[in-house]
């Protein structure tokens, strides 16, 4: 940064301070004129949510969703939505056993929710479309994180038929549940939130008219966009010391894009997925990360001091032949991995055993449900908020057979419960992990096993391609 641009930043910072103060003094009148909310240029809040509680094992935070004007792409100003003024939203960092209180303030001109993607928490706090938070109102999400839930999660809105649009405008954030006895503690961590977006030439967010050709293609593929962001930035740089091992937590927050992550010429250790660590590390050349899935990787700095490499996304054919993008087979660079001039001072030993994941015994399953995934619907049906598609008994163990009967991949997400994969097209899963989202490739069948315990209520299951979900590729499981 030159001295001149630095001065400019100072000037911009000064310029945004007064509207912030002004907006906050007006806060009491917010509910009255919420549809007239004018986005203000705000200084973003901290990148990590500040704990407002002094009570032990309690994390109390405030998340405000509101329209903002910010710079998403270089040289342009974009009106979007943001959590506490940031895209991605701030990190919520908690420990297993913590009681979490989130004061959600919806200052959007429309209803919203916060869905805590992957967390096993009471139904009323899941942030599903059944519990909308009206424009201009507040809601407290209160839940306790269970033992064994340590992992990487994310939070995002989930209003009926409107999830894709709100996430596209900038509403998504990350959540890390930590274990005080984490077997990998001490290893430096990087959080990598992947997203993509599309803009008009003037910098405004381009959400295609559903009736247009682009709207049709977005409905097929999901809204897959040319601008790829890493933590809200385009091709940023991550530094690593030669010889250092870093733990990367990667979240795919995009509406539809599936990433196939690789660092050319080196392997990575895949150590965890949606619901936390595996039992043992698995060495991989590349790893497919469907939208809304998370992974944990150990990346070793094998390069020479001062050299650089990239994290890429390799081609992955999730598309139907009709709407497969022209450039689908081209790798894309996501970020630059820059080696420092000095080597890592310490030698880290990676434990070969990370934790125990007890298998859910298939003989305990009381039933098998079949879900046939069509293009934009499940079991022939479009989602209806007034219909319960499946009813179940609280505490039952069930096998879900998810059959993708069409020619493109669909990532299937179940709210509220982590599950284990039994097999894919009859091929037993090679190792156990906790998952809340499973990519079901075109014309294939995945069987999962889940214990539907603890929390009664109406739970959503759906395709996590947001355009499909909003169109109605979603169902309701009611547990009593």
């Amino acid at each position, binding site marked *: 940064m030159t001295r001149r641009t630095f001065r400019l930043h100072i000037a911009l910072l000064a310029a945004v301070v007064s509207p912030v103060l002004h907006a906050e003094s007006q806060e009491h009148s917010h509910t009255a004129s919420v549809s007239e909310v004018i986005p203000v240029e705000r200084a973003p809040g901290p990148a990590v949510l500040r704990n407002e509680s002094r009570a032990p094992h309690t994390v109390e935070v405030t998340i405000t969703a509101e329209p903002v004007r910010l710079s998403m792409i270089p040289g342009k100003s974009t009106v979007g939505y943001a959590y506490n003024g940031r895209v991605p939203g701030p990190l919520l960092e908690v420990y297993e056993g913590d009681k979490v209180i989130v004061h959600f303030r919806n200052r959007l001109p429309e209803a919203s929710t916060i869905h805590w993607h992957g967390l096993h928490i009471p139904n009323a706090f899941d942030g599903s479309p059944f519990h909308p938070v009206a424009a201009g109102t507040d809601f407290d999400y209160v839940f306790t994180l269970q033992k064994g839930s340590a992992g990487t999660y994310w939070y995002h809105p989930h209003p009926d038929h409107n999830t894709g649009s709100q996430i596209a405008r900038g509403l998504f954030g990350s959540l890390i549940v930590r274990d005080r006895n984490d077997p990998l503690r001490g290893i430096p961590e990087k959080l990598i939130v992947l997203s993509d977006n599309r803009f008009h030439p003037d910098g405004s967010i381009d959400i295609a008219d559903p009736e247009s050709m682009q709207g049709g293609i977005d409905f097929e593929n999901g809204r897959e966009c040319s601008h790829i962001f890493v933590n809200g930035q385009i091709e940023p740089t991550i530094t690593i010391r030669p010889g250092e091992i870093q733990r990367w937590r990667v979240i795919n927050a995009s509406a539809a894009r599936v990433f196939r992550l690789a660092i050319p010429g080196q392997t990575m250790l895949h150590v965890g997925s949606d619901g936390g660590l595996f039992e043992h590390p698995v060495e991989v050349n590349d790893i497919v990360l469907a939208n809304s899935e998370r992974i944990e990787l150990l990346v070793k700095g094998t390069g020479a001091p001062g050299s650089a490499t990239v994290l890429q996304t390799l081609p992955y054919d999730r598309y139907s032949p*009709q709407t497969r993008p022209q450039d689908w087979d081209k790798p894309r660079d996501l970020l630059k991995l820059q080696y420092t001039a000095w080597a890592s001072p310490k030698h880290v030993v990676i434990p070969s055993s990370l934790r125990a994941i007890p298998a859910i015994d298939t003989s305990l399953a009381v039933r098998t449900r079949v879900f046939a995934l069509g293009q934009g619907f499940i079991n*022939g049906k*479009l989602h209806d908020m007034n219909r319960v598609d499946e009813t179940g008994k609280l505490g039952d163990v069930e096998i879900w057979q998810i*059959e993708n009967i*069409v020619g493109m991949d669909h990532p299937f997400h179940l709210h509220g419960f982590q599950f284990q994969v039994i097999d894919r097209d009859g091929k037993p899963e090679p190792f156990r992990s906790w998952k809340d989202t499973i990519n079901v490739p075109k014309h294939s069948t995945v069987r999962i096993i889940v214990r539907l315990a603890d929390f009664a209520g109406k739970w959503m299951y759906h395709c996590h391609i947001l355009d499909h979900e909003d169109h109605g590729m979603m169902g309701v499981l009611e547990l009593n």
Partner: protein
Amino acid sequence: MKRWLSGVAVIGGAAIVMLSVAAWTKPDKAKQDRAAQIARGRFLMLSHDCGDCHGGVVDPSQKGWLTGVRGPSQEFKIGPCYVDPAAKPCFTTRPKNLTPDNATGTGRFTERQIFNALRYGLRPEETPDVEITSTTPGQGNFPLHPHYLAPPMPWWAWRHMPDEDLRAIAAYIKGGLKPQTNKVLDSEGPPDFWASEYTVEKIGPYPAKSYPQSETERQ
């Protein structure tokens, strides 16, 4: 009094017998209707030459009857490449396995989805199982972005068949065929799923105008 009571009992008993006979014969009637519907569907599929593309030609006793293509020689090339193999675009159509196999056939489709495929040309795996009451995209459950069956499937002609005939075909596919596993690769096509080829100008209106319609028809 006693005799009167026993009279009631006799009449009551007879009524119960008659009711149970009625209940017993009723599903039989439904079964017969279903069998007739399936037989009608079979006749229609034979007479409309479905096996010529979908396998088995004209003989239901042939192995491979309606099980879909089994290799590139049975595929269709659609587009300018039909004349000049090098010309673009070139889309491959692969007639599907119509037997009710869950993984590779029609097992996961309802009869209504198959009906909608024949009446409106809508792919059953890509169109919800709903009653469609319009042919205008976005109205009456007609999809905003319809996914049409790939040419040369001549649904635009067969959609004019009566409802009961199309239902009979669906009944035969779901109820008269044994599931056979044959994985047929997806057909290709343009990103509009052939919508620009299936306009009213190109395939005519549905329902067709009543007879006589034009000067080439007898008045």
